[in-house]
């Protein structure tokens, strides 16, 4: 307690120092006077009295010093002193300070922005307290291996809601698609049906308005349309597109799928859950009812918060008990392998997992961390540079440091002073960098893909600031330690003896600086090689053969309103055979009309059939394959898409036999299942127990297409394929036009509308644009990477130039002597260039080794490029050597211009 008071008084002693110094002087003066009086009284002469008093008091200056040390906090005072001195020194060298601050600011600004993005999207994606107590619940089957279904079914949800559960809050959501009527027709919007407490569990507030109250839920028909009018919360993007960003949107109503929804709130633009930016709205709902007699879909996702004090394991154990109540009605449909019947020996249960696992996006993760690495390299290079320059300046201050040492400063004190200056520089760089960060942040957030799931805003928060401070400190220490050590090692006698700043003390520093330049060059080389590899990878990706010819090709998805085809007496929401038949007829009509339209080269279609397990003839292990039904004959898919045929023949309608269907497979499937053999003629069948077992024979092999998975085979769209196909009301349509495709869109829409007017207007997309868009993110990212590599190159060049310039300046007398003794200018040029080449060479050697070692980390990012690709390495070396030599040129030329007479006379 007393000691605390003591420390507080010492802090107070930092202020008002002059007044206190005056008081001390007075006190000491009065002390002397009193003593003198006493001495006089005891009979000494005035002179003797004064002398004795002074001797007894002791050395006044050291008393004052001891007093001052006790009064304030010497550490703090020396720190402030060093800071002020450092600031003055930096102000005296504006060029150096400006360059150093700018490079540091760039490094700190960008890395902090990057870290903010990483933090907001990957590390701490969930705001609020205790995000690790949020869990998601799904159904899983125990059947030897555990298989999870990613969601729960409606009956399972009922069991969960009935409780008891180890959760303090439970929310659920489900995909919901509603139609918005626009001038062009029906637009399909993706949204989510949620329990009213959905937003409360996440803890996110809307930008304006409110979220749902407990009682604001509606029931949904099994087609997924709400049965009454209800409230809705809009996403930011939908609000902008529908209402133009009008803040007076609350209370307005919009019509979707025939129902009216009152807008009660708008979510912030960063809330993109659960489908990234595609989630357009949220509607409060009752827990869904599934009609009995049909296997439910496990399409409900559940989110819960653990009660305080409950651990993960306890929650799982309790849910295991709850899981026993799951009956057969809760068994999900289509969850596991299609065609396999539900085995009563399987047990159904619940599984929990932390919700954080939903937020990982490994692609984004890799990209961001890679970028962070690049920025880290840049910072290291900048540090090496600044260290170099600071070392040079420290050498110039040898005399000043020697004087300080002579006056009593210890090595630690000298080192501390130089280090403080470096930290000050780093701090300045950091401050300027933080000003840059908001700018960089805007640019960085554009790197986040649209479909990334996000909940919170990405901004500079406490974590990011902490990171920035850490980076500043680290860089300051990195480039400050070497000069500080050098300053501390000042040898008094030699330094004071020197006439000027040349002499032996220079060589030790010079070697050190040489090493720093080698390091810089090496780092730059690694960075350049990394960037080169990424460029190559991207070029390969862009030139990627899509497997088909995207020119003038459009694709769209057609959804028929199958509900309208129901005969009136079937109201259970299931599709009936008659509605399926109507769908087929409507599609056939559409195809006929489109085929007859002018200006089209061809149309075709693709309908998913489903995935299942199949047994390959001659192989024992079943494989999972998907099946696609495609158009044949006049609407042959491969002809319209121009997918090359590699072996065998294309499909005909005759291949749709029930006993042995003919199929076409793609290249990678052929390679995978029958490596090294001709796949034509091979057979496989569906696994027994899936109803009728179908047998297939491969009749042809086509090239892979980039957007279809590899384990997929094509069957002709025929009645045989029909019965398995689901859903029947959906197909993907391809249209190849003879000229510019977008002109034909109104015509196509007209034809389609003529057949089925109440269908949603299909959105036609250009295949070429889709291809471009898939690489958009990569290209942006690459642009930034190249920018950084270029900046790093510049900084390195400045480093080389700086060191060589300094070296020439140092060696001017030596060069003068050499020239006076007869060496030609050419030889001097060679001397300096030789030094430069040695440095660059050393850097390249170290850099190549490091590149071999480090680029392996990039392997996951590279597409068809080996991490030790020679082209990238050679290119990098070439650029570094070229730029390095250029940087050497100026100092070398300067060396040749040295006039021996002035050089020798130089002090």
């Amino acid at each position, binding site marked *: 307690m007393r000691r605390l008071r003591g420390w507080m*008084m*010492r802090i107070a*002693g930092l202020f008002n120092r002059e007044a206190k110094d005056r008081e001390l002087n007075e006190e000491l003066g*009065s002390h002397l006077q009193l*003593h003198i009086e006493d001495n006089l009284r005891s009979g000494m002469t005035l002179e003797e009295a004064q002398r004795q008093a002074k001797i007894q008091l002791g050395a006044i200056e050291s*008393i004052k010093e001891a*007093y001052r040390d006790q*009064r304030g906090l010497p550490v703090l005072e020396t720190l402030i002193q060093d800071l002020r001195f450092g600031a003055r020194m930096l102000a005296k060298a504006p060029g150096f300070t400006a360059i150093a601050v700018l490079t540091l600011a760039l490094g700190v600004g960008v890395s902090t922005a990057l870290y903010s993005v990483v933090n907001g999207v990957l590390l701490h994606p969930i705001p609020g307290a205790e995000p690790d107590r949020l869990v998601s619940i799904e159904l899983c089957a125990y059947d030897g291996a555990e298989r999870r279904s990613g969601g729960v079914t409606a009956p399972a949800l009922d069991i969960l809601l009935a409780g008891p559960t180890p959760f303090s809050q439970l929310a659920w959501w489900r995909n919901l698609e509603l139609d918005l009527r626009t001038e062009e027709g029906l637009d399909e919007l993706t949204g989510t049906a949620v329990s009213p407490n959905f937003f409360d569990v996440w803890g996110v507030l809307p930008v304006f308005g409110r979220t749902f109250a407990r009682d604001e839920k509606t029931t949904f028909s099994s087609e997924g349309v709400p049965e009454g009018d209800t409230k809705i919360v809009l996403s930011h993007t939908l609000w902008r597109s529908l209402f133009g960003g009008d803040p007076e949107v609350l209370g307005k109503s919009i019509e979707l799928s025939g129902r009216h929804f009152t807008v009660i709130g708008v979510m912030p633009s960063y809330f993109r859950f659960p489908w990234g930016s595609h989630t357009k709205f949220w509607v409060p709902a009752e827990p869904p009812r599934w009609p009995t007699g049909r296997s439910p879909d496990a399409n409900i996702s559940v989110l819960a918060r653990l009660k305080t004090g409950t651990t993960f394991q306890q929650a799982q154990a309790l849910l295991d008990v709850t899981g026993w109540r799951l009956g057969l009605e809760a068994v999900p449909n289509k969850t596991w392998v299609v065609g396999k019947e539900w085995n009563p020996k399987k047990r159904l249960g619940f599984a929990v997992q932390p919700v954080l696992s939903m937020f990982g996006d490994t692609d984004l993760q890799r990209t961001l961390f890679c970028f962070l690495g690049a920025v880290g390299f840049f910072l290291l290079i900048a540090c090496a540079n600044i260290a170099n320059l600071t070392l040079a300046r420290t050498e110039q201050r040898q005399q000043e440091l020697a004087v300080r040492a002579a006056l009593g400063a210890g090595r630690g004190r000298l080192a501390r002073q130089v280090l403080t200056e470096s930290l000050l520089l780093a701090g300045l760089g950091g401050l300027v960098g933080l000003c840059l960060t908001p700018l960089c942040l805007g640019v960085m957030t554009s790197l986040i893909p649209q479909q990334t799931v996000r909940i919170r805003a990405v901004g500079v928060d406490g974590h990011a600031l902490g990171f920035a401070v850490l980076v500043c400190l680290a860089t300051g220490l990195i480039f400050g330690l070497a000069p500080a050590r050098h300053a501390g090692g000042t040898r008094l006698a030699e330094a004071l003896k020197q006439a000027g700043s040349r002499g032996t003390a220079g060589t030790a520093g010079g070697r050190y600086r040489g090493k720093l330049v080698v390091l810089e060059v090496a780092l730059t080389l690694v960075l350049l090689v990394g960037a080169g590899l990424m460029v190559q990878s991207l070029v390969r990706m862009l030139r990627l053969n899509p497997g088909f010819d995207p020119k003038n090709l459009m694709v769209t998805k057609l959804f028929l309103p199958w509900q309208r085809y129901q005969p009136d007496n079937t109201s259970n929401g299931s599709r009936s055979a008659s509605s399926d038949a109507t769908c087929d007829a409507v599609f056939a009509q559409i195809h006929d009309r489109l085929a007859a339209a002018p200006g089209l080269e061809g149309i075709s279609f693709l309908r998913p059939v489903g995935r299942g397990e199949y047994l390959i003839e001659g192989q024992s292990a079943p494989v999972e394959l998907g099946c696609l039904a495609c158009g044949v004959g006049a609407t042959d898919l491969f002809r319209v898409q121009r997918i090359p045929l590699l072996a065998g023949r294309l499909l005909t309608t005759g291949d749709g036999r029930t006993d042995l269907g003919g199929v076409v497979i793609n290249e990678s499937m052929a390679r995978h299942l029958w490596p090294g053999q001709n796949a034509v003629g091979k057979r496989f069948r569906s696994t027994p127990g899936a109803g009728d077992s179908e047998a297939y024979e491969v009749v042809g092999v086509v090239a892979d297409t980039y957007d279809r998975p590899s384990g997929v085979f094509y069957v002709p769209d025929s009645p045989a394929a029909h019965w398995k196909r689901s859903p029947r009301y959906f197909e993907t349509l391809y249209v190849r036009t003879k000229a510019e495709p977008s002109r034909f869109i109104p015509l196509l829409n007209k034809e389609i509308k003529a057949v089925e007017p109440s269908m949603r207007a299909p959105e036609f997309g250009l295949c070429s644009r889709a291809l471009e868009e898939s690489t958009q993110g990569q290209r942006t990212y690459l642009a930034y990477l190249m920018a950084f590599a270029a900046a790093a190159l510049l900084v390195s060049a400045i480093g080389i130039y700086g060191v060589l310039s300094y070296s020439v300046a140092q060696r001017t007398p030596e060069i003068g002597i050499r020239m006076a003794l007869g060496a030609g200018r050419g030889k001097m040029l060679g001397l300096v260039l030789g030094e430069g080449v040695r440095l660059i060479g050393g850097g390249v050697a170290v850099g190549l080794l490091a590149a071999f070692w480090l680029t392996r980390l990039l392997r996951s990012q590279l597409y068809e490029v080996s991490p030790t690709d020679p082209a990238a390495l050679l290119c990098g070396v070439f650029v570094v050597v070229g730029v390095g030599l250029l940087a050497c040129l100026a100092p070398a030329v300067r060396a040749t211009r040295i006039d021996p007479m002035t050089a020798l006379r130089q002090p």
Partner: protein
Amino acid sequence: MGNKAEVWQGTLALMVLKTLERTGPLHGYGIARQIERTSADVLSVNYGTLYPALLKLEQEGYITSEWGLSESNRKARYYTLTRAGRKQIDKETQEWEQMTAILARFLNPKEGLA
């Protein structure tokens, strides 16, 4: 004047406090003189070392100071003991007595090292 032993830093504080307890408020020179006298001239205090020690005691709150006039009408800074100071004297006295008692047993081996 003459060879007097140097004084330990920590004990100086206790000596100052004890002196102030005996004499009442006193200025720096007076305290130094008193300490010299009390130690029967064995200790020689380099008077200057007193001032940082006085400052420390003041920072920790055991003494207070204010400017006043000496007998010879000279301006001087007078130090007074506080209540906390008195308590500290008691505490430290106790500690010292304990320590000397323990040491005494070592230094007088006749008194039972059993």
